[in-house]
């Protein structure tokens, strides 16, 4: 589904991603861990097409297409979803309005008929139940005045409504209380299927207790320093990142 080859990207003059290699197949869940500032959000953003980081080398193929050549909204319509580490507020724009506009833009792209208000409401109310969210949230402005945890839950609501092929979750677990974490994980798990893939960026094993990854990667200093199965996350939890290598420790090479 996704194939990243020697991807390099800079913010300003500063190289952040220094040659990422990663293959994600349909049906797989990959966890990416790594110290603060190592480039996890930058990688997520580059995949989604945000322009604040400039790609300086490498290639990304997604479902056979050159991903880097697509505009942000084209990537979204092709099924890439990014749950933001820091969701933005959009004053005055109703949550329900944004969701409906987004879903219909994507449906149109896929040659499906647009949903009318009734059908859409039925769908979204169903998904709200799954996310254990109060319906009143639908009519509030996007993320405005939402608590940190509510914003994260709202991101996952968008994901379950849009049903992406490749979901990238950037620290969706941060800021969630333990009950919310269960609900969010339940939402994410409901989307797991043989034709979808997920990339979970996280700092904590806790999330991986609920969403079992197939692979765990450690990103440090702009490179994937180590990859392994779920046991790697446990190892990191015990040992920290010091031993995988970071900006001050270039010596460790990924297996």
């Amino acid at each position, binding site marked *: 589904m996704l194939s990243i080859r020697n991807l390099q990207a800079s913010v300003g003059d500063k190289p952040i991603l220094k040659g990422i290699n990663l293959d994600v197949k349909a049906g797989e869940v990959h966890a990416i861990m790594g110290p603060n500032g190592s480039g996890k959000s930058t990688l997520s953003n580059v995949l*989604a*097409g*945000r*322009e*604040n980081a400039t790609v300086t080398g490498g290639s990304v193929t997604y479902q056979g297409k050159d991903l880097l050549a697509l*505009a*942000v*909204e084209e*990537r*979204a*319509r092709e099924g890439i*979803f*990014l749950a*933001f580490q820091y*969701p*933005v507020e*959009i*004053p*005055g*724009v109703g949550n329900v*309005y*944004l969701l409906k*506009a*987004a*879903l219909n*833009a*994507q449906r149109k*792209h896929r040659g499906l008929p647009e949903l009318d208000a009734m059908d859409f409401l039925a769908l979204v109310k169903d998904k709200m139940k799954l996310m254990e969210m109060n319906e009143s949230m639908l009519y509030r*402005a996007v993320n405005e005045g939402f608590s940190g945890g509510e914003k994260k839950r709202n991101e996952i609501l*968008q994901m379950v409504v*849009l049903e992406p092929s490749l979901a990238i979750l950037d620290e969706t677990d941060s800021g969630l209380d333990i009950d919310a974490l269960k609900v969010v994980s339940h939402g994410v798990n409901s989307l797991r299927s043989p034709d979808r893939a997920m990339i979970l960026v996280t700092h904590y094993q806790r999330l991986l207790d609920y969403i079992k990854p197939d692979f765990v990667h450690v990103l440090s200093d702009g490179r994937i320093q180590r990859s392994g199965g779920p046991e790697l996350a446990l190892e990191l939890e015990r040992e920290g990142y010091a031993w995988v290598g970071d900006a001050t420790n270039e010596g460790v090479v990924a297996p």
Partner: protein
Amino acid sequence: MNSVPDTLEGLISLEYRHGFETSIESDEIPKGLSEDTVRLISARKNEPEFLLEWRLEAYRRWLKMTPPTWASVHYPPIDYQDIIYYSAPKSQKDGPKSLDEVDPELLKTYEKLGIPLHERAILAGVAVDAVFDSVSVATTFKDKLAEVGIIFCSFSEAVQHHPDLIKQYLGTVVPVQDNFYAALNSAVFSDGSFVYIPPGVRCPMELSTYFRINAKNTGQFERTLIIADQGASVSYLEGCTAPMRDENQLHAAVVELVALEDAKIKYSTVQNWYPGDKEGRGGIYNFVTKRGDCRGTRSHISWTQVETGSAITWKYPSVILRGEDSVGEFYSVALTNHRQQADTGTKMIHIGRNTRSTIVSKGISAGFGQQAYRGLVRMARSATGARNHTQCDSLLLGDRCQAHTFPYIEVKNNTATVEHEASTSRIGEDQLFFCRQRGLSAEDAVSMIVNGFCKEVFKELPMEFAVEAQKLLGVSLEGSVG
């Protein structure tokens, strides 16, 4: 004035003549302004003596006045002798016969707006008083309105048929010497709309006028007077579009509203005049005086405006809160793109006890747009217990546009309260990215964010106007975000 279309369809299709200027033979008087011009206009319109005297008084006062310079707008001096002050269409037979004859650029804009003009008015049975150049060519639904005693006609007709009402109310809200442009308008005004709602009557439909500017070098001096008698209420919509122009055109209208005891007037405007091209060539100069007088106890006047057009906008719809417990409101969205300049705001003059006013101003600047909000809240010594709340927000797109806020607050009664909130924000790259990541195009995303910003104002607009206003913002912002 001889071929008044007899069907609504026919009447409204006049709107498709936007963009046409040469095909209509105009009954014009020579360029320039003098006492003779004023007399000639008055004579052409067969006006009673009192009105001629009133015009002449205004003209004499105007001669001694100078254009205001305090506004944050810049334009070359206007040669008032180079303007034709009166032009009436002789016939409408020469207008475009089909859509093929209409300026395609204009049609494209209508298409983007998604609302064919003829539908816009048919929606909800809007009554249209189409102002064609300077003379109203037709008025509809008159009979239906007349049944309940409502007078809705062109100003000229009102002068002929209801001179007493004109004499009683004209110039009582905006006196002839009020300001340079108001004095000019008073001297040479051509036509406009007149509305009188008798005591206790709620107007059964939205009243509407579409203004256009057509003949070359024809200054537009519209005069509108709306009176809501005791316990009456009315909602009035003013919509404007204008064809492409190379020369700047002056538009100096005056609108007067009078609300007596327990009366309510809601006046909504969507202004979409030609703003000039990207380099700032052409476009309308819109210098308007709009004022409402809450004369009676518990009277209520509400202004809602969406201003996206004109090269220069100079406009401060105001309310004088004279009656006890009267209420004044001002809801405004103003958008400046490219080289547009707008200096707009309101004045709330609290005189009566327990008067209340609300001001919500949303300014959006893109391109090199320049925008100033200028608002005066005055609490007179007599305004015991009066309250004002002002909220004034600016949204910037890009880094070459500017927004300024000039609140003037004068409080002479210490029981009065005035609250002012202001904010300036920029459409965030992160908001745009978020919307696009969910699948929206950049243009739809901007339009959605801007519409969200304007929501408090749009919800004050009548339904079909609100839809149009949203689309208008989208069209006006096209190309402002890369």
